[in-house]
């Protein structure tokens, strides 16, 4: 077994995978639906255009599998944006270096003001988000933030720049439970185009981040691609391949998947590839039919109607009441946001909606004593 995902990844060709997905037929889809242990080949069929007429059947199966494994509960989390400083240029992001806006990194006091609001909302699970500004927002800063937050939250996740194994090894004992790191796209050349400058332009370093997390012994990690940059079907295949590789290798770690669709932001770029609601439902169901254990997460990027309906289809965790700007909850509500959110409902409203659907909102599903 190789030591990191790149070696396996390099044995695949984007074009060949793409072609094999688009060549799938209704026969392949029916086989995939009928199988009980589905393979990546089945997954290809389920995300292919040929599966479109089977969407309702996929949704029914996905619902059953999700209920069997997770029951009628929904994990709720909230992002806490600590900084919008960033040294990278990413063509799709509001925090990009070339976007001339005022930058802000929250001080300890400001963080605590934000925390007060989040606690008021009932949150026990917080997702820390920053841009990539290594001179201000670095491991030392994260250490201080974790020390500050740990007494207040049962579970702390992080979505920041990729770090080295040693950095994760320092942060995990301080209470870091989950790390999300999205590859954005697995298309090597396009990745370079979208990340022309900064540390993030190193495709391999990003690709091997989950390996470094696995080696550091992180409790949970989240994967995904940014939908809109490249052919979403091919990108999703590579995400599934990555997940399968990681699950086998870092078998004590839990995994989650997200499927962020490009959203408007200041200075924005139109998605190269549009994904319809129908296609996103197809993707959610395909992931569930491939993997009954993986957590599937949906953010407030999506619309109210859409979020309400996908709850019963395979989703197991969602954010609510989110602000995507540093200080957005209390300190500086008008600072630059990373992207516009779509579902503006409060956590309380989300909880009520879940209740009406027969679901329980879960605020706490981990205890820091366990770590």
């Amino acid at each position, binding site marked *: 077994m190789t030591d990191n995902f790149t070696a396996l990844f390099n044995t695949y060709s984007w074009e060949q995978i793409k072609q094999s997905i688009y060549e799938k037929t209704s026969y392949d889809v029916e086989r995939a639906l009928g199988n009980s242990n589905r393979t990546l080949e089945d997954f290809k069929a389920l995300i292919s255009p040929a599966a479109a007429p089977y969407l309702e059947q996929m949704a029914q199966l996905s*619902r059953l599998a999700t209920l069997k494994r997770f029951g009628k509960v929904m994990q709720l989390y909230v992002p806490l944006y600590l900084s919008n400083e960033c040294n990278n240029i990413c063509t799709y992001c509001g925090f990009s270096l070339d976007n001339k806006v005022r930058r802000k990194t929250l001080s300890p006091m400001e963080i605590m003001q934000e925390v007060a609001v989040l606690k008021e909302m009932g949150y026990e699970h917080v997702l820390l988000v920053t841009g990539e500004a290594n001179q201000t927002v670095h491991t030392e800063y994260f250490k201080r933030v974790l020390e500050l937050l740990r007494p207040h939250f049962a579970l702390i996740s992080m979505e920041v720049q990729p770090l080295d194994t040693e950095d994760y090894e320092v942060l995990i004992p301080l209470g870091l439970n989950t790390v999300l790191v999205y590859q954005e796209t697995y298309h090597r050349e396009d990745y370079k185009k979208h990340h022309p400058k900064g540390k993030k332009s190193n495709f391999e370093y990003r690709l091997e981040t989950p390996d470094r997390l696995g080696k550091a012994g992180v409790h949970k990690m989240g994967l995904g691609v940014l939908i809109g940059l490249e052919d979403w079907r091919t990108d999703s295949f590579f995400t599934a391949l990555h997940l399968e590789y990681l699950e086998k290798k870092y078998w004590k770690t839990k995994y989650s998947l997200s499927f962020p669709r490009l959203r408007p932001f200041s200075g924005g770029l139109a998605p190269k590839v549009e994904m319809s609601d129908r296609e996103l439902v197809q993707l959610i169901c395909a992931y569930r039919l491939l993997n009954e254990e993986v957590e599937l997460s949906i953010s407030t990027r999506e619309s109210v109607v859409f979020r309400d309906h996908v709850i019963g289809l395979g989703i197991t965790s969602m954010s609510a009441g989110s602000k995507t700007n540093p200080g957005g909850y209390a300190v500086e509500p008008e600072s630059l946001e990373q992207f516009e959110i779509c579902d503006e409902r409060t956590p309380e409203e989300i909880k009520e909606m879940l209740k009406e659907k027969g679901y329980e909102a879960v605020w706490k599903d981990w205890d820091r004593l366990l770590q």
Partner: protein
Amino acid sequence: MLTIADKVFNSRLFTGTGKFSSAEIMEQALLVSGSELVTVALKRVDLKDQEDDILSHLNYPQFNLLPNTSGVRNAKEAVFAAQMAREALETNWIKLEIHPDPKYLMPDPIETLKATEELAKLGFIVLPYIHADPVLCKHLEDAGTAAVMPLGSPIGSNKGLKTIDFLEIIISQSNVPVIVDAGIGAPSDAAKAMEIGADAVLVNTAIAVSRDPVKMAEAFKIAVIAGRMAFEAKLGSINSSAVSSSPLTSFLDD
């Protein structure tokens, strides 16, 4: 073709040498089976004697000998036995069997893990005989095992794949070859193990104690090939149609 450590095997049927009515019959049966990996119990052979009855009947280039540690009761004894075998048989391959319980010969997971760690460090190619325990398999991988050999049912019982649900989990998450060991009583069991994706099976009693071991060896040979072919060709799906309640995707049409 199957690769374990750096060795390539054409046959996915591994065989044992116990319980045959004579060394000649054993020899004939194993030759017909096509097997390229043959286990020998250290406790049964005379390591110092080139003319040992069992060993002298296994003197063919296609047979790779896999000494097993059957008879040891803990990790310490197993490591010692493996070192003896390496010296006498000039192979660093070892089938690790630690069963302190003399009645059912149930493998001891704790001592097996300990011994695997140590033997891997000493440069052995370790193939541990274990219960069909998926978590243990992952620990063994981390310890450096070359393959895992979960049991299908109690050793020598001929009861088949009683542990199939766990074998399926092991196969689905293993990074090393999975060889189903113990309990395979009929060629159909072997075929089934191969159909669900096992990399190989190890058969001894079912061949050795049948009325015609040579014919049975051939039957196993064919069954293993058939099972593997079926696995590679992908079995047709068993149709489970979805329960349709109210439509879940109609909101997309609004």
